[in-house]
């Protein structure tokens, strides 16, 4: 059970939080323009690295705020937690 720092409330127990998955690019501004493959890429494909991972959590039984957490998927060490001030740019369609 992790101990997580909410950037707004401080160190709390994992039971107060809900996991929101790997941070993903923002939603495409015009999904209709994407091919099925590109859309599937946005929906389903994630990096899932062994090591440091940027992910989203929400302090659901606390302040209700979403934030970004950097977690080592091998050791569960938490490196950084920060508010969602700089959202990533819109989803880019890759060339390959």
């Amino acid at each position, binding site marked *: *059970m*992790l*101990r997580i720092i909410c950037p707004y409330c401080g160190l709390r127990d994992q039971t107060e939080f*809900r996991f*929101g998955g790997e941070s993903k690019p*923002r*939603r495409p501004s*015009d*999904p*209709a323009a*994407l091919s*099925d493959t590109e*859309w599937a890429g946005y*929906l389903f494909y994630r990096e899932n690295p062994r090591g440091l991972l940027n992910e*989203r959590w*929400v302090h*659901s039984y606390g302040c*209700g*705020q*979403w934030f970004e957490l950097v977690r080592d998927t091998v*050791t*569960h*060490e938490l490196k950084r937690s920060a508010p*969602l001030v700089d*959202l990533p740019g819109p989803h880019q369609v890759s060339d390959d």
Partner: protein
Amino acid sequence: MTEPARLQSGGVIDRRKPITFRFNGKTYRGYEGDNLASALLANGVDVFARSFKYHRPRGVFSAGEEEPCALVETGEGASRVPTCRAPMVPLTEGLVANSQTGWPSVDFDLGRVIDFTHGLWPAGFYNKTFKWPSWQSWEGLIRKSAGLGRPLTEPDPDHYEQVNIHCDLLICGSGPAGLMAALTAGRAGLRVMLVEQAEHFGGSLNWEQYQLDGKPCTEWVEQVLEQLRAMKPVITLQRTTVTGIYDHNVTTLLQRGQDTDWRECFWTVRPKHILLCSGAIEQGLIFPSNDRPGIMLASAVRHYLNRYAVRPGNRVVVATNNDTAYQTVFDLARERLQVEAVIDCRETVSEALLQRLADLGTTLLTNARIRGTQGSRRIRSVAIEDNDGKRIGTKKCDLLAVSGGWAPRVHLLAHARGSLRFDEVSQSFLPDALPREISITGAANGTAGLEELLAESVRAACAIAGALGKPMEQPKPPIVTAAITESRRVSPANLDTTQPRQWIDLAHDVTLGDAELAVREGFVSVEHFKRYTTIGMSVDQGKTGNLNAFIALGALTGRPAGEVGTTTFRPPYTPVTLGAIAGRNIGEFYAPRRYLPAHLTHAKLNACFEDYDWQRPDYYPLDKESAEAAIQREVTTVRNAVGVFDNSPIGKIEVCGPDAAIFLDRLYINNILSLPAGRIRYGLMLNENGVIIDDGVCIRLNEDHFLVNSTSAAVSRIVALMEQWLQCEWPELRVLVTDRTSDWANFTLAGPRARDTLSALGTNIDLAPAALPHMAVSTGTVMGLEARVARVSFSGELSFEVNVPALAANDFLEAVLIAGAAHGIAPYGIEALMILRTEKGYLHVGSDTDGSSTPDDVGWGWVARNKSRDFIGRRSLYREANQAAGRKQLIGLETLDPGRAIHAGGHLLIGKDRSPPAETDGWVTSACYSPTLGRYIALAVLCSGPDRIGEILTVCDGNQRFNVKVVAPVFYDPENKRLEN
């Protein structure tokens, strides 16, 4: 009563406090301080249990939690506890214990026939043999003859507690290493928790005969404990097992109560640092017939002798591959019991040991091993051979003390994902890389010799204190005298692999023959090997056997043990009672009951309540009315007069702000931008995969103020989803979302006389159809209460949803019933509502839809197609699979015989004989008897359903088969005339 094997003096049992207990129906005597194993041994009991598979007699093998043989059940009735390890059961007055395997009795077990025919029962036997006609047809028989213990059938009457706690340093184990570390860290001012799984603190100091600072080591234990108890922030827990270490060092403990009103207490500890002082477990030896009663770990013999004053045998042979077993020879000699022979597989032993053996006149056979044992209910003799298999002779004995080396208790380290390495010298797995904030000292770290072990603990505790900001000078550990000099050297196993009946797992009855078969069939990876043979998978988890088994696997496959590796240790370390994990969160405390604001009035109306997350009236029977009759009467009342339904749990999510309409337009498949103020739209929400996640109505109260009525079960989910979109994707939208579900009560007045009833209550809202048409909303007062009145219908009748402040709910409902009396009003419950909505074919998301349903599948595809703007899930609707023909789509069903009952869950079958196993063409999602139509009706999903109206299908409904006709999913008032009243 006499106890033939009890010594006249010695031990720490209290001879002035005798205890009477029963085992397998016979009464015995023990003393305070005994455990069940020591007391039964003192009484000369040989057979404790029958083995798992072959039903062979088994005695007691160890003196701790690692016990693989002496498995018993304690207590009776609902308080019975299966699969207790006898050495872990403290002896209490009136204790009742029974062997749990063996039929008809442990002394005469018919299952022994399996042993005599053991060749027919190899590893993997069940999986290979009982395949025809199916495993299920054999399962009952097999479960009766194999397995451990009987599960309880009654609710657990015992009470369990839970504690959550933080500390600086958690020390697991209170042997010399743990005590020394606790004392040091405690003096440094750390908040220390010292946890000991046994009845008493001290670990091996309780049963080894060391001298510390010139005094018996038990005195030193008492001194240390006294000092620890005087330290305020130090917590000492005995009878408490560390069951697991999880992420971020969260550690769970299971404490067994004694004279407490709770049976067990489950601790969740968040320590800053963990120090493992968990010691080591002596391992058995592998030789033919090494499972007989009377074969016992050498350290367990010392344990019973020194701590419990029990002589576990009269003619003793010792077999070993290391030095530590010699202490057993010396301890027995002190009680004037001469060991007949020491069988050591090593070439030589140290001069010091040779000298001491010579002084005692004990025979030593080096370069020797056991060829086999004899005896039925107890060992009678051992046959001895040299390491090349040349016969040496036999020795009579009734106790064979064995030592196969020591396996450090590294289980907890493995839980925390520390790594292990194989150590050639001690032939065991030792800690390698340690996780952060975990240290390990003492025998658990492979450290031998009391002196070195104490010094190591002092160093570790000081380092931890320093790291936690409480540096201190290293104190001096006590001076050690009278301990035998231990060498860590263990001779590698020297196995005769041609002998199959050598047990490598006593608890699960796995033999070397099974291992050999597994290897022959290719299960040579240690994890495959374990699962195929089931080695180490019993209650003891292979604590006294795994190490040898993996060394044997190495021998069978020609690999060194280090290369074979070990299986992964996972929590819990020892079995944990489910009741302890549940703690107080059972029964009424499992989840809070949510009551409707008008609950008292419903109760007065004789409502039958059901838990739908909220306690909701299911129906309201009159006098002796049956449930069915009540439900049908309620439906008919709504169709013909007026009914009132408490709809308070419906979601009341307020969405406000200048961008509220834009926001909701992105969430709904419907056009929200075009919805005028004062109007309502029924809408569907999808996830990004295009799957329907909720339906409900969206009410535009004002230009920038919406009220979203989501399904009652989905409220918190939808609110969370809205927040996620706003925070993570569209922070630029000026929108505020608030869940006000419990602030407002909501009552549905439905039926042709609904308007009359609402008027009679007194309202300043114009209820005329022109002023408040279907799908319009108005705010004002009703009965002088602030109110929102929405014309929305979940029944197909003229219907008003009246929202009033929750605190006024009881008064309002009572007033409605009085005002409606003249119009024939009746309250109706969930059951009637479900019939009303089924008659109209109104969707119930989650019943009529599943994780694949798109708007097209439920007849709402046109709405999505008509919307030109993007919305959540829109792109996915255009994926190939979502456009494909043959999707399961919503239709109605009528039984050809109107009186034939149909039920949700029945399958619509394709295929000639239309009986399972057959391909399914769809299934019934909702079904009821419609009192309005006088027949059974159902909603179902069917492949390409809307194209198949009129088709006759066979439904497989439980054991029944009957025909149904496919119809449009609206059974009543398809033109919606009644809504427009």
